[in-house]
Structures are given as structure tokens and as C-alpha cells.
């Protein structure tokens, strides 16, 4: 039997359409982004963030791209930059958004379209299992 190592294990993850698996590589790139998001668990930090988002972000050693991604609430971009959805949830919770509302923004659908899809049983796995296999 062929032996798999961590490299082939990880390589497979890039073959899933529309999905960013939260690997160590992403965890490292997004470390301060996620720690910033975590800081919003404290009410006093949420207030300070809301009062001046840019100033609050500048307290963190994040990249300019990450900061802009937060300001834009561009969650797909933030995932690319190492954000993890459970951490990013602290950002959209601060905005008063639900998971359904926030998640829909990543799909290219409106909230209503996304909600309708979920009510109809969700997105089918058909065709979105593998980029390579197109199944």
C-alpha cells in the first residue's frame, strides 16, 4: 500500500471546490487576524472597535490586506488570508449578523436566495466534491 504523508494529506484539501480548509499554513498566516477577532468577545473591545474600526485594527500586527478585508467584511478574502470562520464569527456577531446572513455573503447569493436554498434542503454535494474529478 502506498504510504501517505502529511504533504499528500494536505494537498487533497486544495481539490475541494469553494472551500478553505483551516490548515496550519492558514492558521499561521491568520494568527493575529483571528486573535483580533477573538478580542471582540469582550464587550468593551466591541465598543472600541465600533467607535473607530481602523484605529482598533491598527493595534494589531495584521497585514494591511487583512485589515482592509475586515473593514470590507469580505469574508471570502479573510478566509484566504488565514481567517477561521469561528473567529470571524466574532466580527459578524458584533455587526448583529446571524450565521445564515454572514455565510450567505460568501456564496455569491443574496440572503434570501441562500435561505431559500437551505429551506429546500441545502446545497447538493453533486459536482462540488472535487475540482479534479468534477464530481
Amino acid at each position, binding site marked *: 500500500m502506498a504510504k501517505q504523508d502529511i504533504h499528500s*494529506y*494536505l494537498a*487533497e*484539501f486544495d481539490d*475541494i*471546490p*469553494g*472551500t*478553505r*480548509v*483551516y*490548515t*496550519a499554513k492558514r*492558521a499561521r498566516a491568520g*494568527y493575529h487576524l*483571528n*486573535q483580533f*477577532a*477573538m478580542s*471582540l*468577545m469582550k464587550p468593551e473591545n466591541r465598543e472600541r472597535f465600533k467607535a473607530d474600526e481602523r484605529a482598533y485594527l491598527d493595534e494589531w500586527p495584521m497585514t494591511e490586506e487583512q485589515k482592509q478585508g475586515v473593514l470590507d467584511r469580505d*469574508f*471570502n478574502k479573510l*478566509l484566504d488570508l488565514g481567517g*477561521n*470562520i*469561528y*473567529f470571524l*464569527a*466574532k466580527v459578524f*456577531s*458584533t455587526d448583529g449578523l*446571524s*450565521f*445564515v446572513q454572514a*455565510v*450567505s455573503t*460568501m*456564496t*455569491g447569493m443574496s440572503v434570501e436566495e*441562500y435561505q431559500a*436554498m*437551505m*429551506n*429546500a*434542503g*441545502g*446545497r*447538493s*454535494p453533486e459536482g*462540488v*466534491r*472535487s475540482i479534479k474529478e468534477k464530481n
Partner: protein
Amino acid sequence: MARITAGIGCSHVPVLGYAHDSGKEQEDYFKPSFEGFDWTRKWMKEEAKPDVIILVYNDHASAFDMSIIPTFAIGTGEKFAPADEGFGPRPVPDVIGHPDLAWHLAQSLILDEFDMTMISEMDVDHGLTVPLTMMYGDVEEWPVKVVPLAVNVVTYPPPSGNRCWALGEAIARAVDSFPEDLNVQVWGTGGLSHQLQGPRAGLINKEWDNRFLDRLIGDTQELREIPHIEYLRETGSEGIEMVMWLIMRGALGKSTKALHRHYHVPISNTALGHIVLEPVDGSVPPSTTLEGNNEAAQAMID
């Protein structure tokens, strides 16, 4: 002697905690979700009556931030408060631990070559409190003690399915050697299929989920061989939480039967499922690794 009398697998959809806490259980959207638990609530209250639940769940960036990521963390504290996940803590009772059993498990598991982290102070999020709400409803105090077992399924790699099953088997051995007479349940939470991120968000795979539920029943051990990539492709990025159900399944031993089973879509972004299992033959393989099993240890002891 303590004994594992049942295992429960259960999704931990946050919105169900919200629906319960804000009195919306009877609304059309939520009703079918809660109704699926009617049987189980009754059974828990009238028949099962566990003393302790070993509750396998994952933290969702509540107790742990990125600075420390334990693979398996067992809660050895006296009690655990509901976490503030951004809207204030859920208005549910504190979770009361069972440090005697928790420490016994931790000690036994480490001798059995599981590399546990012991944690005495932490808050517990919806991953742990929503299943409690689903099974017990509105209570002044939880009528059960809880040993939390937090599993990393957020940062890759999570433990393999095989490792989770094996941990369950080791938990069964450890419970078996706890001297106090205790009725113990093991719960695995999370799943079923869901993806909360990226353009593929919203994925639901009823067929795969139900095949997964099927294979928790009986004596097949097929589930321990499912690789992470299959969960990811077939059940969405957050479907990986299902490996935690395998700890529960492993703890039930050789074979199980299902007492109750429930599957419902739609709710939020997630396929809701739960299953109540009873061990038929609860035997698990002996440890080959327990320190004292080796000859040198024996020579010192006998």
C-alpha cells in the same frame, strides 16, 4: 462499579439554543427540530436517568483562542459556566463537573497512551450546552453531572476517526474500573453535514449522513476508516465534527442497537441529527499499552 448504559450522538446547532432560550420552540421553523427530541427527553427523564455524561464536543473559539490548541482536553473542574459567545452567556444553568470521574479518566487514559490535556477552568459554549438543552429542556439545574471532553476539530488535522474510536474504547475501559456505582452516558456532538464558509457554504448531504447514522448501529467498524478528506468532500468543511461521534461509538463497544433516531433539514446551515444507542455487547479490546501491563511493571508489583 460505573457502567456505560447508552450513547447519544447529537448535532449542536447554535440556533436551537437561541430558539429555546427565546421561547420559539413551537414556531413552524423550529418545531420539527424540537419534536424529534420528544422521545429522547421522555426517555432521559423516565428511563435512562444517567448520573454523569461524558460529553464530547468542540470549542468554537470560545474557551480556546489560537494560542493553545489541545487535541483532547478533559474538563477536570468542579463546574463550567456557559460561555459568552458574543451575545452574553446562554441563560442556562452552570454545568456541574464530576472531577472524581474526570481525573480517573484522565489518569487511566494517559496510562493507556492517550496524550490528554487536563483543564480545570473553562467556559463551555453551544457545542456542549445545546445538546443538554435538547435532551433536558427547561430546567433550574441540569439533572446530571458532566465531564466535558473538548476535541480539536477546527485547526487541521483533527484526530483521525480511528484515534477517536480507540479513545472511546479506552474510555470504556476507564469507566469500567471506576469503583463508584454510576450510570454513565457518552455523548458525541456536532455535525451532521454542514459547511459554514466559502462559496460552497450550505452543503447538506442527506444520503451520506444517513449512511453514517446506519453504521453507528450494529457491529461494523467501518466508520473508523473514513479519512478526513471524505468528511470534507461529502459533508462540508464543518461535517468533520462527526469524528467526535466516533468517540461515543467506540465507548459503546462491540455492538449497539438504536433506540431512537432523528434527522431533519432545514435548520440554520446544518443537517440536524441525533441518535440514541444502547450497547448490545459493550466489550472492548483490552489495552495493550497500559503501563502496568508490561513485564517490568509486573515484576515490581507481584
